[in-house]
């Protein structure tokens, strides 16, 4: 029981770190967004493993809410990518650089 809990948290931490590194290194908008989703799901995994370990029902329900928010975020995000694509016909983020000081 304890081992499963710890390994779940380690997995969650790993996924979260991979997500952060992805956001920093990837240069394609979709890959960036996938990394962000990875981070959100890592957080979800932490939530569920806490809930399972402590025997709390509420943790699982909270995850449902977070997944809904993530889905709404995906909807808005993809729409923004499309409008970026319309401007320049690609979504490589380092070439969308009109705004800088």
């Amino acid at each position, binding site marked *: 029981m304890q081992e499963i809990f710890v390994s779940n948290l380690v997995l969650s931490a790993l996924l979260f770190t991979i997500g952060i590194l992805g956001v920093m290194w990837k240069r394609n908008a979709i890959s960036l967004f996938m990394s962000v989703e990875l981070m959100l799901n890592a957080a979800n995994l932490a939530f569920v493993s806490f809930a399972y370990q402590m025997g*709390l029902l509420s943790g699982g329900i909270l995850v449902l809410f977070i997944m809904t928010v993530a889905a709404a975020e995906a909807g808005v995000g993809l729409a923004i990518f499309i409008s970026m694509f319309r401007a320049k016909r690609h979504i490589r983020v380092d070439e969308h650089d009109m705004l800088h*000081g």
Partner: protein
Amino acid sequence: MTTLALIQAYVPNIHPAHIMPFLVMLVGAILCLIFDAMSDKQGSRDLLPWVAGSTLVATIMSLLIGFMPYNRLFAEETFRADTFSVLGSITIMLACLLAVIMGPALVSRRNIPSGEFYTLIVFVAFGGMTMALSNELLTAFIALEIMSLSLYVLTGIDRRSSRASEAAFKYFILGAFASAFLVLGIGFIFGATHTTHLHEIAAVLGEGSVDLVNGGAAALNPIWIFVGFALLFVGMCFKLSLAPFHMWAPDVYEGANTPTVVMIATSSKIAAFALMVHIVAALARWDLFAEGATYLVGFVALVSMIWGNLGALVQSNFKRMMAYSSVAQTGYMALALMVLIALPGQLEGAKLAAAEEAIKNAIVLYLVGYTVMSALALGIAWLIGGEGHMAGYRGLVFRNPIAATGMAVAMFSLVGIGFTPPTIGFMGKFYLFKEAVQYNFTALAAIAVVTSVISAFYYLNLVVTMFMREETEEAGVRLACMREQTFRLASSDALTRVAMASCTALIFLLGFFPNSLFLIADAIKEGFLR
């Protein structure tokens, strides 16, 4: 009968009157969508500003009348209204109302779908108010997402502008990145304390142990709470544009349309600050936490004050300058937040409660003041078309003396220190720094004063540009062509001018009588109805 009893057991115990402001907003937002669907293009452009505007006004009224119980948990312990959150909510509504007033000129010139535009503004206000009032971390997170998602769309709503799309993209990716931190932070705090309600978290921390489901109790694990708060704070720093997490702010301010910038600069910051103050109030009674968190928040405040002010010095674009200035101004407020965390280590009992109240009041006073000042600056820039390069302001006083004077008032008030005592900028900073000095953070307060003096260079530089520089052919052309770009609507402009005049009046009114703000809060506390 049993079925009925079963249903009743699952229906939350919520008094409709308690959640009246939320209901008003939701009905208003839905009405916006329905009216948009029922009328043609021009009809919805004419009608929707009035629907959205009256929704916001009705919400302010329902907040003022005081339907909500004050200083008490309501709606299944999900919300809690206090001076900070109610005054904050009203200010959020007013900032969104300004965006609605500025809207028609933007909508007709850039050919923006008006249904989406006004509905999303109402949703920004809804999310902000819910966040400011919430006593539960997950509700706060969902409210924050409602607000942020609406702001991402509003940033990029001008689809023909590639700058707007780029700004929306940067805002979106960094905002989503920040919410992942926020969720993980909430997860760790939930894991440590077994609850997401702030008052229960405070109770658990007070006892030092958590009750387990199978009976018995476990010792509290401080590591989880530290890590949780650190992650949550990093997430909130992105939303508040505190350095070093402010990188999106200048680009978004520059690329987004000005009505949206008004909301990003004010509404989202008020809501996030209200949430931070509530979280800190729940956690700070635990002395182990207070020691560590003081350094964390203090560091962020320090970096924001220095980086924000130095960054603003080198900007030549008006909106980018306002973005860096907002980083610095939030830094001053984070300084007071740090004092709030450190306070339980220095005082006890009734004295502590009074001191906490004083600091919260100082923060909310400065938040309201900052809203008024930046609304005035951005609104005037919008009216004269001066949202671009600051060379356009050369000799503005000869062409448009009223606009130049209003902008000068905003700039003097934003400087705050030393020059013009009776403005809200001065009084707000005075109270913030006074609290910091009073509780032995003299060094940080001194840095805050020094950075305020640095900020005088760039704020007053604009005043000098407007009043003392010769009007050049080039400057006139610059502003004229910007004015052409942002075509004006007479009615929208007239209302915006009225709003700017009231902002100017408020700057001086709150500067002379800062306590008048809290008279309003006291009146709400009593309740005009109850």
